[in-house]
């Protein structure tokens, strides 16, 4: 038995999927959710094998929700119109259904399902691509103590590598995100965020001064009164970004 959750903000859109699924007795719907927050809760609670996920939804997008899920179930994305997302799906061979959803196409997706139940790598790739979309790259969604927090990127003071995580330091405290430094270096606006060191990316707006510590070794002071080391290549990038 495959257990699934439907996540879509429009009740009628969920109705279609429900209707189509009624012919597939091997799939059981364990929950229906109308936004990403509910979806996340339901996924944690039911640990489904499969989710049907809409992309544009209230509060947080389907992509942002999925980023916060630790053990990702198989995903079939459903979307009405989003050129950017569709391209990401195609490139990474993740299944998606375009609304209005065609019955034959739906059945095909279900048919291919057993082979795809372990496709989380592809899903990760889609999420990385989605993070670069103009609609999403001005905020970061994180989870702390079970609460979802949306951080505007402008509020990030600096980012620090921390084992498998990246620590985001903001004025409201520190948050952890299960991503790499390279991922943030690529997705954050290169004009605003500079990787000054293997372990640090800083928000340019936070820089108060740069000082020479020893020969060829610099440190930077942030507004939040924190000194961070600057590597040789980092110093070159920082200088260029500040127009020095």
């Amino acid at each position: 038995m495959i257990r699934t959750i439907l996540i879509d903000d429009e009740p009628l859109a969920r109705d279609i999927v429900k209707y189509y699924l009624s012919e597939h007795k091997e799939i059981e719907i364990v929950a229906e959710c109308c936004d990403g927050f509910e979806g996340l809760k339901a996924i944690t609670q039911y640990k489904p094998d499969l989710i049907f996920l809409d992309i544009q939804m209230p509060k947080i997008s389907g992509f942002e929700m999925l980023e916060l899920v630790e053990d990702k179930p198989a995903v079939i994305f459903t979307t009405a119109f989003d050129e950017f997302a569709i391209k990401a799906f195609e490139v990474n061979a993740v299944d998606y259904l375009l609304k209005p959803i065609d019955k034959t196409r739906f059945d095909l997706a279900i048919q291919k399902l057993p082979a795809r139940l372990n496709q989380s790598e592809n899903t990760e790739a889609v999420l990385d691509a989605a993070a670069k979309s103009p609609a999403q790259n001005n905020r970061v969604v994180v989870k702390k103590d079970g609460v979802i927090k949306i951080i505007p990127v402008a509020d990030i003071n600096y980012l620090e590598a921390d084992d498998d995580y990246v620590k985001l330091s903001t004025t409201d405290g520190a948050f952890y995100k299960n991503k790499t430094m390279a991922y943030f270096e690529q997705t954050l606006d290169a004009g605003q965020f500079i990787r000054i060191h293997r372990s640090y990316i800083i928000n340019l707006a936070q820089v108060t001064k740069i000082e020479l510590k020893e020969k060829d070794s610099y440190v930077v002071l942030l507004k939040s009164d924190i000194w961070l080391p600057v590597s040789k290549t980092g110093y070159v990038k920082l200088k260029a970004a500040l127009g020095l």
Partner: protein
Amino acid sequence: MTTRPLSVPQIQKTSLGFAIAWTILCGVGLHYVVNFSWMISFTDSVINNALLAIACVSISNMLGYYQPKNERILYVLVVTLALTFVIIYAAKYSLGYVFTDFKNYLDFYNFSFAFRGLISFMCLGWCALANILWYRLEEQSETQTRLLTAQSLAKEAELNKLRHQLQPHFLFNSLNSVFALTMVNPKEAGVMITKLASFLRGTLKRDDELWVSVEEEMEYIQLYLDIEKVRFSHRLKIEVNVDDETLNLCLPGTLLQPIVENAIKFGLYNTSAGITIKIDVTVEQDILNLRVQNPFDPEMKATGGTGFGLTAIKRRLYLLFANPHLLQTEIEANNLYITTLKIPQKNDQDYIN
């Protein structure tokens, strides 16, 4: 900017080679045919041809700077003739000065003077014609490029306009809802399809230049709201109050729908609870007031980054009325976001199509 023929390396090389060859040919010819010494032959050839070359270069540049629209041939003829006289007399006096003592040579020079003039004139004339042809072709290809750029820009603008009008996200989501209704509630599906069709028809008809009456506009908005209501059913409540005296007033047909769309987007898309959108239409001192009110989540606003996305509407208002203050937004207690649109009523009926 047109390219000068003489700035093209290949032409530079060819003309230089041609000039040198011609100079040598003239020198050798003078030496063997008329039996002057090498020195005299080559000085004569170099001075004459150097002057000719300078004249050619200046005529080419001159044509690059200025070409009369009419009487082009006459202009070229006069310029060429004048230059010919300048160079042949310059050559005559400089050579006469250098070779004062060579009576034979000076006699020969006077004898061949008219012939030299003719050759110079032909050379310069040919040079001028070649240049005119060159600039013509340049001009043509430039016009072609400009035309192509203008065409592609116009196409892009048209495409953007169409996409904006059709709002693909709204359209496909609505189609999906209709599709669901055909199974769940076929009767309702029929109603929805006709509403969607009327709405689309209204959308395609809309144009910045076209003013519509409040009555017509509110019917259009109602269609839009009805469709959104089907999509979000229980979550969306709508209150519309239109004063009777406003019904015959007018407004540009492209402004209100995006504002209502915004209200729904920020009211509805940021919450999964039920919301109420309120629209009030009133008139005050010949100014039509449209007030749209939606609840919002203050936390979400902070993260939206682009505010409420009204910039495009503001820009359109500015283009229509040259007044940036017609669109106002305010935030009331209880997290209500209010957008007010003011449309000055023009008594002049010319403005109302």
